[in-house]
């Protein structure tokens, strides 16, 4: 029982961290470029393929593969923006048109990749580097992949936090996210901010793809299949908050693994329904409270806890008579 619980917990943390990593990029581009980028899926896929090629063909190590995936996806993201999104945004395209364009970009990249993957017989490949067991926690296997993924996520969060709060560029990014016109008017190089955003968003997607290729066999659809999990993380996190996105990614992972296992044990629900959880998260959050986790105000809670407890005053009746 404990053993199973631990292995499920480890799996959900792994998946949740990967969803957070993908969702962070979506949140970043949404905050600064202001549209929901459906081609984010392809950045993940490219990262996964580059890392498999690095490890299987060139015999590189994990670190080398990570660097290459980061660079490849970042470059692709930058190219997408320079060629498609930026010219459109300059002409004043609406967010919906940008989203439609990103669907087109996604289709194009995915199927061009598929053509090459088919020619070279890589439609379904597995990385030669497999997760290896390094420890045992209450009977469940802890692999090096778990450690890396969680450590990378913590590293990313720390770096992003430091960058956004301590550096000039980070402050410029926050300013651009807050008010684009004002940022431009105050002399911030918004084009530079935009490029940095795409590099970080693409790079994180590439890293997530790299880890995914070690976790499971990949195909050209891998990013697209998990895109809506990433969207679920980003939307549940409120589409604007980094910390919300990370929390929401982990919540998504837990909901996927534990939710479906519990439903399967208690009600005999088929395990294939786990795909539906992400979609349902997206629909429910957007319809009930589009601000997601960002709607929870931690300050309010803190104030409420700190507030001195006074005896309650009797209620005043104001509405009874008028005039």
């Amino acid at each position: 029982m404990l053993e199973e619980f631990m292995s499920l917990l480890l799996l959900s943390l792994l998946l949740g961290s990967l969803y957070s990593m993908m969702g962070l990029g979506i949140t970043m581009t949404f905050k600064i470029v202001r549209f929901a980028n459906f081609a984010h899926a392809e950045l993940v896929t490219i990262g996964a393929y580059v890392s498999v090629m690095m490890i299987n063909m060139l015999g590189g190590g994990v670190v080398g593969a990570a660097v290459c995936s980061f660079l490849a996806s970042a470059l692709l993201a930058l190219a997408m923006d320079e060629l498609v999104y930026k010219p459109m945004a300059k002409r004043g395209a609406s967010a919906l048109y940008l989203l439609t364009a990103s669907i087109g970009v996604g289709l194009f990249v995915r199927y061009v990749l598929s053509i090459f993957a088919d020619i070279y017989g890589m439609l379904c490949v597995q990385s030669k580097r497999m997760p290896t067991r390094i420890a045992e926690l209450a009977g469940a296997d802890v692999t090096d992949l778990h450690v890396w993924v969680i450590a990378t996520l913590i590293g990313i969060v720390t770096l992003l936090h430091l960058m956004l709060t301590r550096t000039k560029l980070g402050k410029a990014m926050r300013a651009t996210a807050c008010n684009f016109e004002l940022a431009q008017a105050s002399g911030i190089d918004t084009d530079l901010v935009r490029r940095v955003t795409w590099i970080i968003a693409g790079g994180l997607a590439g890293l997530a793809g790299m880890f995914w290729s070690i976790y499971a066999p990949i195909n050209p659809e891998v990013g697209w299949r998990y895109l809506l999990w990433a969207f679920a993380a980003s939307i549940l996190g409120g589409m604007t908050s980094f910390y919300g996105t990370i929390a929401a990614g982990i919540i998504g992972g837990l909901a996927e693994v534990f939710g479906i296992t519990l439903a399967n044990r208690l009600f005999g629900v088929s395990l294939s329904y786990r795909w539906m959880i992400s979609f349902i998260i997206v629909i429910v959050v957007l319809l009930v409270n589009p601000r997601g986790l960002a709607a929870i105000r931690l300050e309010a809670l803190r104030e409420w806890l700190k507030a001195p407890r006074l005896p309650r005053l009797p209620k005043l009746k104001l509405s009874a008579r008028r005039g």
Partner: protein
Amino acid sequence: MTILPLIISIFTFFGLYLILSISFNLEFGYAGQPNFGKVLLYAIGATCAGRLVATIIMLYLGADVPFFSALAADMRLRWGAENPLATVGLFVLALVLAMVVGGLVGYVLSYPTLRLKGDFLAIVMICAGEVFRIFLKTYEPLVGGPFGLSGVPGPFSFVGDPNLKEALYMSLVLLIAFGCYLFAQKLVNSPYGRLLKSVRDDELAANVLGKKVVRVKAEILVIGSAMAALAGALYAFYVRGVFAEDFVPMVTFTAVTMTMLGGLANNRGVLVGCLLLTLFDRFTRASFFNMLGITVAFDISYIRYAVMGLLIILIVMFKPKGLMPEEPVRTPAIEIAKEELSK
């Protein structure tokens, strides 16, 4: 493979996608509601029609064979060939049921349009379509889960010659599609068309003028969804079955591309866009390439999807208004305005 079945399949698909694109154009082009969940209604129409016909035939036959087996499918098809009148009746009943259910779902879908706009509405609609596809694929009692439901006899099952049968069905689909086109043209070239455009352009202003925006959104989604479900039902009779894997988001994106290529808020443009894209779609299939004797080292369909993606990008970037831009609503009011101006 000869040329005749290819032409028949081109025009059948043209009819199906014309209905889908016109319904998308009504919702997005005219009323400004980006219903990117077209495939949801398409799947619902197919499911309703296929399941209804199969269930009724099985109840009538009363045979004790598993519902989704190949044997049962064969029995249903043979029954369809032997009872032409009953099959046509079932066909009409199935279309009506699909439209009613589609309309009801469309009414439910109008709830998100009240709370969300633009890209978020599109995300919710895409998700809704995917939820239904996964449900169909997983929940076996409805349409057989991953195996699908086959053996749904079409209205022309009694015709022996397969080419003639398909050609008759093609004409029927084209006739219905043309009916939808005329209906859409009548609908939008009326004061109601102006009302739809007012909701698209400025909801607040329409509200201030006393137009019931909420009701208009619900009405147009009911109409569009019923049309999409009709297309789905026709599709189920065309492939003689319901298979969950047919209802991928690509169906929606194809209809969106057709609409945007032709021109938003211009039904004639949609007609052109639909024809162009269907021709492209059919001529980049493996069967056509085999006919020409060309073989490539990869799956041909990848080229189709990649070019479709490129086409979406190019349209959105360079011709966001489509090949045929929007036209003014043709009602007597515009003639009067022209006369007034020419004085």
